[in-house]
């Protein structure tokens, strides 16, 4: 009967084990909570990684701006962005990888007790910086797609978020940005080292926020001149970038996964996917622009040679992206002084911010000089003296002058270069004959995932923006 008792013991074991069985279901290897700063750092990195990438699955804007083109696989150069689901990737990167973590960061920081008034100021600055990044990410989405989910975004209980009108969203973003600028206390601290753009320097963030606000003001200007004007004025008054040392740059490191993403695609992969594109190269060569030898390498017959945009190109026959851009530690430029100076030149031409068109030339010269300086290229003064470059004598309207030089200065800032082209309509980029559409795209088509997962909202938005096409001009792109 001893055996029977063993068996009975086993039976007893069943019921004793069974009580707290659910305790087994604990993941003991993964965190459920973390510091607010850690989400912020991640969001920053995800945001800049996306904008810096040259991967054809993620970021094709350098090609859209015809700064580079493809060799053997020119599908994206011909505006096929659906095969590789590029819109889906941008959508996920901004909403899921940037905005969601910013949201979580703010939530955690708000719930974390602060110490003293300094602590309260720090929190206020942190939340303001998060807000600036929120605005940046949403602005990128609106400028790319038009209408996007906004008021109903970032809520997992609503899996069918409606899309909000692009302009309405944009105006709200400007308001949020202004509020964030107002709440920044430059005497206080913020994220410290967890901020991998400005090291927690609130004054720098304020200048960045104002510079970005200046940009938003100009973007909205054609569709709402009054609001554009006031936005530009208040940004300038509050203080935009004053030198290259104010630039928003993201300093990469020398080992993966913290290298510049370009390094992964250009160097680590061993692939030879890109060559210089003829439109930018020819423009720079025509202007005797010495920056061409920094932007590109491997001259052919002594000169930098660009390939026909969108064609199948032999890597060997053309020049390539410059050596500088093959560095793993290459900083990514989020927004720079040269861009701000070009914006001020434009503001002067539009008589905004208390300026008159007479002020445009000085800003234009400063912008070009800032670009030369940033790349350590000498000869800016001589360059500016050329009649083809000098503001007074260069060809065309102010839009063409500024547009052309800005295009050059925005080398390797694909998204900005493409957006300025759409806004200023210069340079006059031409779509390749083999392209999916016969003009340079004016927007991205919506993600395929939205069609299948959020169909009704998608359909409404597609018709509201005037058709879910690459060629549909967005609300701010009036000309």
């Amino acid at each position, binding site marked *: 009967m001893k*055996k*029977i008792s063993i*068996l009975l013991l086993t*039976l007893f*074991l*069943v019921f004793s*084990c*069974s009580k707290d*069985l*659910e305790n*087994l*279901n*604990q*993941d*003991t*290897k*993964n*965190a*459920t*909570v973390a510091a607010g*700063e850690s*989400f912020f*750092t*991640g969001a920053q990195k995800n945001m800049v990684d996306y904008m810096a990438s040259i991967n054809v699955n993620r970021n094709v804007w350098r090609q859209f701006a015809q700064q580079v083109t493809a060799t*053997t696989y020119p599908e994206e150069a011909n505006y096929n962005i659906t*095969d590789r689901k590029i819109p*889906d990737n941008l*959508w*996920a990167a901004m*909403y*899921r990888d940037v*905005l969601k973590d910013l*949201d*979580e960061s703010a939530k955690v920081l708000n719930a974390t007790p602060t110490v003293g008034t300094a602590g309260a100021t720090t929190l206020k600055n942190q939340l303001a910086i998060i807000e600036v990044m929120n605005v940046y990410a949403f602005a990128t989405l609106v400028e790319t797609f038009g209408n996007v*989910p906004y008021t109903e*975004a970032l*809520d*997992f209980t*609503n*899996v069918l978020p409606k899309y909000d009108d692009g302009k309405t969203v944009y105006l709200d973003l400007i308001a949020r940005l202004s509020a964030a600028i107002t709440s920044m206390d430059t005497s206080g601290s913020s994220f410290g*080292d*967890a901020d*991998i753009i400005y090291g927690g320097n609130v004054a720098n963030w304020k200048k960045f926020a104002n510079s970005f606000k200046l940009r938003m003001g100009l973007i909205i200007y054609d569709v709402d001149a009054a609001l554009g004007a006031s936005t530009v004025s208040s940004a300038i008054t509050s203080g935009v970038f004053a030198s290259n040392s104010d630039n928003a740059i993201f300093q990469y490191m020398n*080992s*993966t*996964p913290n290298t510049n993403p370009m390094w992964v695609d250009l160097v680590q992969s*061993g692939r*030879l996917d890109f060559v210089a594109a003829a439109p930018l190269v020819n423009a720079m060569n025509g202007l005797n622009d010495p920056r061409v030898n920094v932007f590109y390498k491997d001259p052919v017959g002594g000169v930098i040679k660009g390939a026909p945009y969108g064609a*199948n190109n*032999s*890597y060997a026959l053309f020049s390539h992206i410059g050596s500088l851009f093959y560095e793993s530690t290459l900083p990514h430029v989020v927004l720079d002084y040269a861009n701000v100076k070009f914006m001020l030149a434009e503001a002067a031409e539009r008589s905004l911010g208390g300026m008159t068109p007479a002020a445009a030339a000085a800003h234009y010269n400063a912008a070009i000089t800032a670009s030369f300086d940033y790349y350590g290229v000498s000869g800016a003064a001589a360059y500016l003296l050329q009649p083809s470059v000098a503001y007074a004598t260069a060809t065309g309207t102010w839009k063409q002058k500024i547009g052309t030089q800005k295009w050059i200065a925005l080398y390797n800032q694909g998204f900005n270069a493409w957006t300025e082209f759409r806004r200023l309509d210069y340079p006059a980029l031409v779509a390749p*004959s*083999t392209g999916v559409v016969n003009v340079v795209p004016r927007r991205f088509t919506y993600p*395929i*995932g*939205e*069609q*299948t*997962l*959020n169909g009704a909202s998608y359909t409404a938005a597609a018709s509201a923006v005037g058709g879910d096409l690459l060629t549909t001009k967005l609300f701010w792109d009036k000309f």
Partner: protein
Amino acid sequence: MKTKLNGFLTLLLALMVQISFAQEKTVTGKVSDASGPLPGVTVIIKGTKTGTQTDFDGNYSIRANTGAVLQFSFIGMKTVDQTVGASSSINIVMQEDAQSLDEVVVTALGISREKKSLGYASQSVSGEDVSTVNSGNVTNALSGKVAGVQIKRNTNMGGSTNIVIRGNTSLTGDNQALFVVDGVPMSNANLNTAGQKTARGGFDYGNFASDINSDDVESVNVLKGAAATALYGSRAANGAIIITTKKGTKNNKVDITLNSGITVGTLDKSTFVKYQKDYGSGYGAYYGNTGYFDEGDVDGDGIDDLIVPLTEDASFGGRFDPNLNVFHWNALDPDSPYYLQKRPWVVAENMPDTFFNDAVTYNNNISMAGSTDTGTYRFSYTNFLQNGIMPNSELRRNSFALNASSKLNDKLTVNASANYVKSDATGRNETGYSDNIITSFRQWWQTNVDIKELEDIYFKTRRNVTWNPSWYDNPAPIYWDNPYWARYENYQSDSRNRFFGNMGLNYKITDWLNVDGKVSIDTYSYIQEERVNNHSNPTARYSRYDVDFSEVNYDLMLNFNKDLTEKINLNGVIGTNIRRTDSRSIYAATNGGLIVDRLFAVSNSVGIPSAPTEGSAQIGVDGIYGLASFGYDKTFYIDATFRRDHSSTLPSDNSYYNYPSIATSLIFSELVDAPWLSFGKVRVNYAEVGSSAGFAQLTDVLTKPDPFGANPIYSVNSTKRNPDLKPESTESIEAGLEMFFLSRRLGLDFSWYKTNTVDQIMPVSISTATGYSSKYVNAGEIQNKGIEVSLFASPIKTDDFKWDINVNWAKNENKVISLYEDVTNLQLGSFQGGITINATVGQPYGTIQGTTFVYHENGQPIVIPGGSRGAVYKKSTTTDNVIGNMNPDWNGGVSNKFTYKNFNLSFLIDVQKGGDIFSLDTWYGYATGLYAETAGLNFNGVEKRAPLSEGGGIILPGVSADGTPNTLVSNFDFYGHALGYSRAVSKQHVYDASYVKLREVAFSYTLPTKVLDNTFISGMQFSVIGSNLWIISKNMPHADPEAGLSSGNLQGYQSGVMPSTRDLGFNVKIQF
């Protein structure tokens, strides 16, 4: 089983009957049944051990006393007792006996049952049938042998086999059948990465049921439906493969068996690329001045030379011209015999099919079985060694098994089994897209590159001298390594030490009541190591993934079996089961390359390695269950089961679940008197079973990306968990009919079933605008309904010759009834080529979606002018078109066995009808101009690849927008033509996965026992065995339609799949 049972019964009866005394004489006679003489009938003098058997003509001869009782017994026949009288000739006509045919099968939880009493479908396969052809994975051997079991092996060495019974019931969960060996649930996990399963790249590490040694298998019983598996409760949803291993027999001698086989597998060329041989490297005419060759001063003579476009991994380049001498890849390396030599521009002598070796498999088994006074035992050792067709590939397996049973006293029996398996593999083939040599061969290759030259230079230099360098003065590979370098320098290995076994006690309380206690364990420790050496195209790396797993089951069962009256029997079980699984893992990898070449250690990392990823998952289920089976007059049976599970993976207020089933059967042949009907049974059942949530699906956890320098990063997990989950639940009804006719010469087993699985636990994809990619919900319903038919026949049965046929056929119709809220599509996987595999409402599970044709109302695809690049098919603007489905329409198998005296011939034809596959291989490979279809003459009798101006081009079958037949000629002079990835619609690369295969052929000869009479050998058998010798029919070009990526829910897609082999083996079995 049945023979043994009869043997014991006979023996027992013989012992019990008194011996009568009388005059001894020789009695002779003939034994027959309704169909003629019966050979092999046991004739025994009742009460003695004296006996004989009838010969081929049914004749016997025995010496017996007058008055003695001769007992005639034969399987399936009523035993006849005949007293020896005056006559010395006794002829017997035996009658069939349905009762004696009571096959005993092992059912859920290891409960042995008479098959005839079961109210649900089960189908057995003998150990011999699964071990004759040993592919290294016992799962493969079930293909075509069991109706309703869908088996998709694949062509990867040691690769995983998908085994699904009666269709997919879970949208995103595990649909693989449960494996149980001697009552021990065995993990059939597949630890392939998500990237491997979605064809991005990686290795197919196989499914772990391959650790079951086919030499040790006595029988396999497949429990198909929910009613059959209901006692497994929350793990019963997918059917079960119940394996019983061989045991020692009680015959007072030691049986030693040696089984030794060698198999050679050769490439089945119908499953590999048929290359065009007219054009070489390039994507079109845009290189150098000639259009087809790069230029550079290779030999330093100051003059630019023509160079093969080395950077290009395509064959849409210049037409071969033996009179044109150019520099090839191996003109650039000083160690090459062709260094700085121009050579003719011709197709390679050795194409990639010469890359494959013959696969050789050795299987050696020794077993010893026997008995002692109180018990039985069996030892077995198997050594399995397989070299794959890829260079530097090898599988090794050492299996040890021990089974013993001992009666400790009258009431207490102990039995135990212990199995230890060590499985090792080196050099499994890469799968999927990236860094896979076969992807290169099938999608990205230059037909001018000679495999043998690549082999020679690798072995001469041990450097990565590749056909695909970055430029003529830069030998670093641009896309592809030398394939030999890739095989010998960038190889994986894995090793698994596995133990499974159990120990049980049975205590007989009374003759109708006993109690079983059993502890069983399945545990393994496992390591996967992956390597890429420096100087390779992929970044050099080393990674290791260590897994420790165990599942322990404690079972306590009270078994009863009592005849309540003469006609009424009640038997059943009350029991409890405690299950605990514990899985721990750690993954660590180098970052950014290796410091020292060929040193594969995490510490040899160029960059700081990412923190190792750890996993620790514990799951527990406590169950109580009962089974009551009520039998009336051996004619009518009713079974009821009940199980209540308490699962650790569900929220505590929601973690207890009940699973009932009821099954009935009526043996109507007992009620009717029809001599042609040997046996007839109808069965009907209903069951509810479930499947629980996975580990830690209730609580959100953060993801932990690498820190940025000193700054830690955390991120919100992209999958939103759900704290309110409940188990998936399957309701099933089933009906069946079993009949045997004409003295069991003809048999039929038919089943119809319908299962509905609701409350699916699934991470549904949601708009990323929510901040998440997916969230866990309990929703959705899948229905499976189908029919299964098995037919058995013995058309010829004479003294010397016997022919048996077995046909299995099954059709499953699967339909996704609903998903989540208004969601009508659930993406299961996203693949290159714009392809997704989905569950779509109203469609069968596993739709293949992508772009499709735009059809004219006459049903023909519309062809449109495509501008400067030529006419193309009009492409749908959307990518969510259903262009195929991974489910076959039906599966079937026909096996034939011929026995002539000592010769035995059997063959199995395995058929799948329907099912679709998207091929990324032709999607890219047509564009890159590798395949035979991309060259040759067109409708004009001109080279397709000639420019339109010279009469080249192709005409796409289809119509113009107005419905008239298409007459537009499409350019076919560069890769961006209308058939390849550049401009094709996805549907152009969807193929029908049907096949008819000669799956197995076995021819064996058993030495007559009299030859061995005076030797120590008691039996000897020689066999010649063929496996997959002939794909009789298929519609998929250039590949085996069974080839795929992995086991699991994602099927219907091929990229860089291995070709298959025809295997021919020789086997000797010796018994001592």
